[in-house]
């Protein structure tokens, strides 16, 4: 079991408030990703759940029990660090076994569990090596092994893949997700990479300036962003945000249209504009269009349209997919 609940959790460093008040409920066995720009407090929140950072107020419940005053070791959580944080003087075996050794398990049981964890992560041939003799991906595997071997109530991941190269990151992303499903252990995963968030999460927590902006499934966030921040943060390229007269026409202070919901044509109806730049990926084409009436707009076209930079085009916004926001940036529904 591993349900985690935050009730009015806040954090201040001196007079500087990092997290004003966070409420969150994480179901047992779910994969929750904290995402947000750097400095939004996502890592601080994770470290407070881990117990590595004191809370300034509020309660953190793990399986219903308040753990605010419980030291990290007794919370039954395990953590994977961005820097891997392996013990450099111990072998892979020693690294994975350390937590079990601290828990005072009998040697035979430790051996068995370490062997099982190593097998799951394809680390068996490396058990007697030191961390410095491993590649980045292998090191991160060891650090994941160290986390799973203890069979914790929940895994805490602090940007674990950001030190890996792009190809390895995609591979590890899938491995981590598969492992979490297989073990059915609650996981909280911190990242600033929204692709990681979208692909791995059951539910995403979008954080901005220490506040939870929205909590929902990836597609919920994409299709129904609660406010301008989430609308702009989730999705790549960013959602087009259009204000003033055009928005007023829809009865909103700001409207948002995703690039795939902007239709580009050589002529016909719609806003006239000039293509400032065009990115031809073969499968898709991205157009960056300056349209005097609505401003700078990004449009996505599936396939190839034969329009180049400098061409004059017409833009049409798909009325069925327009997001409307009020003065405060909240979504109008």
């Amino acid at each position, binding site marked *: 079991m591993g349900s985690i609940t935050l009730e009015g959790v806040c954090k201040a460093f001196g007079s500087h408030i990092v997290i004003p008040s966070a409420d969150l409920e994480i179901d047992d066995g779910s994969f929750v990703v904290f995402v947000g720009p750097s400095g939004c407090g996502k890592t601080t929140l994770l470290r407070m759940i881990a117990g590595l950072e004191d809370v300034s107020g509020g309660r953190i419940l793990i399986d219903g029990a308040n753990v605010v005053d419980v030291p*990290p*070791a007794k919370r039954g959580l395990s953590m994977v660090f961005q820097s891997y*944080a392996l013990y450099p003087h111990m072998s892979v075996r020693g690294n994975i076994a350390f937590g079990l050794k*601290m828990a005072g398990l009998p040697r035979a049981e430790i051996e068995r569990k370490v062997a099982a964890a190593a097998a799951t992560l394809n680390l068996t041939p490396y058990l007697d090596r030191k961390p410095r003799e491993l590649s980045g991906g292998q090191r991160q595997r060891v650090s994941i092994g160290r986390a799973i071997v*203890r069979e914790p109530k929940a895994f805490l991941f602090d940007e674990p893949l950001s030190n890996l190269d792009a190809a390895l990151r995609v591979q590890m992303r899938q491995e981590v997700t598969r492992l979490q499903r297989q073990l059915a252990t609650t996981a909280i995963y911190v990242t600033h990479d929204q692709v990681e968030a979208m692909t791995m999460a059951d539910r995403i927590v979008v954080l901005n300036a220490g506040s939870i902006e929205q909590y929902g499934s990836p597609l919920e966030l994409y299709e129904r962003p609660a406010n301008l921040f989430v609308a702009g943060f989730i999705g790549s390229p960013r959602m087009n945000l259009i204000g003033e007269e055009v928005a007023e026409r829809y009865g909103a202070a700001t409207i948002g249209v995703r690039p795939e919901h902007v239709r580009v044509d050589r002529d016909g109806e719609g806003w006239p504009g000039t293509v400032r730049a065009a990115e031809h990926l073969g499968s898709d084409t991205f157009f960056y269009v300056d349209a005097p009436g609505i401003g700078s707009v990004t449009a996505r076209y599936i396939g190839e349209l034969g329009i180049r930079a400098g061409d004059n085009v017409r833009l049409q916004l798909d009325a069925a997919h327009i997001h409307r926001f009020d003065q405060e940036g909240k979504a109008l529904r």
Partner: protein
Amino acid sequence: MARRTSATRWLATTIAAWVVGFVIFFPILWMVITSFKTELEAFSTPPSLLFFHWTTENYAAVQERSDYLKHVVNSIVIAGGSTVIAMLIAIPAAWSMAFAPSARTRDVLLWILSTKMMPSVGVLVPIYLIYRDTALLDTRVGLVLILCLGNLPIVVWMLFTYFKEIPKDILEAARMDGATIGRELVYVLTPMAVPGIASTLLLNVILAWNEAFWTLNLSTLEAAPLTVFIASYSSPEGLFWAKLSAASTLAIVPILILGWFSQRQLVRGLTFGAVK
């Protein structure tokens, strides 16, 4: 062509390095050579480098005049004792400043270092009077104490810099893994800090071994280490270059042996952090 240039450069660098190394080493070489000359030859101008009558009479004379072994034992006790005590105080101090710093840690560190900025001679009279009144003059305990206090700032600083290099993440990982503070110290921190501790220890032994100001001023006979033994050959009956050199050579032999066997540790310790 490129190969030729690099070969020439390699040769030039090698020669330059040898020259620099030789210049730095020359005084020691000169001392060792002089120790095998007669007093007359030691004074002669121009000095003879290799072609003179080699003799070991100085060593015999030195051995006869003073009790070399007694000074060696004193040096070992003073250097070793002051180092061990300094380490016992400095390790926890550096530890807490590196891993649990408070708002004042920076100031405390600077204050510790500032005590090294004052010339020792500035406090010679008060220290001497205190030692006289507490009967610490010419005792090993007294010398251990003063050398320990004298080197403590440097030891704390060195250890602090080493401990600072240990990533905090690793300690946090140990805490997540369920290690108590005590076990974190034993299983994670200490093994990682050993190179730093070892090189600090070695450097401190060397500094204490060679310390001359306090040992010369606060000891005469009973507690006198090798530095006093060397100095005794420059007065009052006149300067005896050859015997002085023989005494000096004898004095540096133990520390040279220690340094030779621990040079890897020393170099590693002194460049720790510079090379990842």
